[in-house]
């Protein structure tokens, strides 16, 4: 509850969150709701019904022009040449040493037009990085569109039914990690993407960032989801949901000191692409037999909650590494964590100890993700 001296940045929904008495927190310089309706209730709403998040703090960089694909290919580790118009994928921008500038979602808007959705806390750094890396490339124009959109994430097994009430676009035709444009709440050309950060089915919509429009759409989403028990959700449940789903968070599982192969995200790094920033370093790590440490999932075996920054030890007392994210899991009702440990300690069921406030508490290595949503027949 420290007093803040610098002005926090606000999304267009800030007044709405404050009026709803959501608990606010400084997240990467943004005044964001962390707890709207109770973290566990929000978490369970998303796992079993639907929840809505204001994620307007996320940034958006657009690359346009005939050179845009070449620019994306240079900047990002995944292979954007495989994307069709209307398709998106998980990717990352890397430093030459193979560590993370940021993880991103690349959307192919058209043949000469890509939208890269970036993290809030890294916005300025990312934009500068992009300009520095591709400023010399011909035929590509960089636009920072971060403030143009209010981005809402509607997530959960009833997300499609909720959003369908507000749009004439047939949402069943949008596959996971695809997007389209449609009319939403009377607004034309709204980007509707079947993406999210919760491990559930869901959509992210990009609407104009003026306050009245943002507040109106937020309200209409809540109203549309009311019959399913929709809850407004904050960053607290967003974090526990993504943790259960084993998804990385910048500054935790991924950072400028952690490389892609350590983070277990090698499947998104297309080393068969001729070139991208960081590729050579990853090839070296691979040639050396893989990374020395790796990200694992841990489940506490004894009473205690391993949290971010807590140290992980071997049972004979050797320091192995640190927990990057740890929390009680509201859905699984276990205490779970992700941590970096030496490659020798990554086998499933390996027992380790987490130092929790001076006490050694046993944990074991479990598969990631902790939670996978049930497959739907439809």
């Amino acid at each position: 509850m420290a007093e803040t001296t610098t002005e926090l940045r606000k999304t267009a929904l800030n007044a709405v969150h404050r009026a709803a008495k959501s608990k606010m927190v400084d997240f990467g310089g943004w005044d964001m709701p962390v707890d709207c309706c109770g973290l566990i209730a929000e978490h369970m709403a998303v796992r079993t019904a639907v929840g809505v998040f204001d994620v307007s703090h996320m940034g958006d960089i657009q690359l346009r022009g005939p050179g845009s694909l070449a620019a994306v290919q240079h900047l990002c580790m995944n292979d954007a040449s495989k994307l069709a118009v209307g398709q998106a994928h998980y990717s990352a921008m890397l430093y030459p040493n193979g560590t993370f500038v940021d993880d991103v979602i690349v959307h192919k808007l058209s043949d000469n037009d890509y939208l890269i959705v970036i993290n809030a806390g890294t916005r300025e750094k990312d934009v500068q990085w992009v300009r520095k890396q591709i400023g010399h490339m011909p035929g590509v124009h960089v636009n920072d569109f971060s403030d143009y959109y209010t981005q809402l994430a509607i997530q959960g097994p009833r997300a499609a039914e909720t959003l369908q009430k507000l749009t004439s676009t047939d949402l069943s035709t949008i596959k996971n990690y695809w997007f389209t444009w449609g009319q939403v709440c009377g607004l034309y050309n709204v980007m509707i993407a079947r993406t999210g950060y919760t491990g559930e089915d869901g959509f992210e919509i990009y609407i104009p960032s003026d306050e009245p429009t943002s507040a109106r759409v937020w309200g209409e989403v809540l109203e549309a989801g009311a019959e399913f028990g929709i809850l407004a959700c904050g960053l607290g449940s967003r974090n526990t949901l993504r943790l259960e789903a084993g998804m990385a968070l910048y500054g935790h599982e991924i950072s400028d000191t952690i490389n892609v192969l350590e983070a277990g995200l090698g499947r998104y790094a297309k080393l068969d692409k001729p070139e991208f920033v960081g590729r050579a370093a990853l090839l070296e790590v691979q040639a050396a037999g893989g990374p020395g440490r790796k990200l694992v999932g841990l489940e506490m075996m004894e009473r205690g909650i391993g949290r971010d920054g807590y140290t992980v030890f071997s049972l004979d007392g050797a320091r192995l590494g640190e927990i990057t994210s740890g929390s009680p899991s509201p859905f699984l009702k276990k205490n779970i964590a992700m941590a970096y440990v030496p490659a020798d300690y990554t086998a499933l069921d390996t027992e380790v100890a987490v130092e929790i406030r001076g006490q050694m508490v046993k944990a074991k290595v479990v598969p990631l993700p902790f939670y996978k949503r049930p497959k739907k027949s439809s």
Partner: protein
Amino acid sequence: MAYPADYRYTKEHEWIKVDGNIGTIGITDYAQNSLGDIVFVDLPKVGDAVEASKSFGSVESVKAVSDLFAPVSGKVTAINEDLKDAPEKINSDANTTWLLKVELSDAKQVDGLLTAADYEKFTSEETGH
């Protein structure tokens, strides 16, 4: 937010209700609200000594860990066993969901604690409202 007038309070957000030589201790409604969903409470054992202003345990929500500070010195005579399986009771009613009872070693310590009015003023300053 209601803070019972017959309780005394600490700046670390514990309350104590004194009855004769026994003090019943809990955390305030402000504390439970700041913490959010409480999932874990770590308490001393019956017979342990607690010391005024020193940590005697912790309370954890999904998001955070918070130390518990003893309002007074004394010997633990009872702990609330219900909290082991249902720590969320603190969220539903912080004013009556007690953590532990202590036999006071110095009843005068209670006089140094905040009154309900003082505490309410203190929390309103802390949130800046």
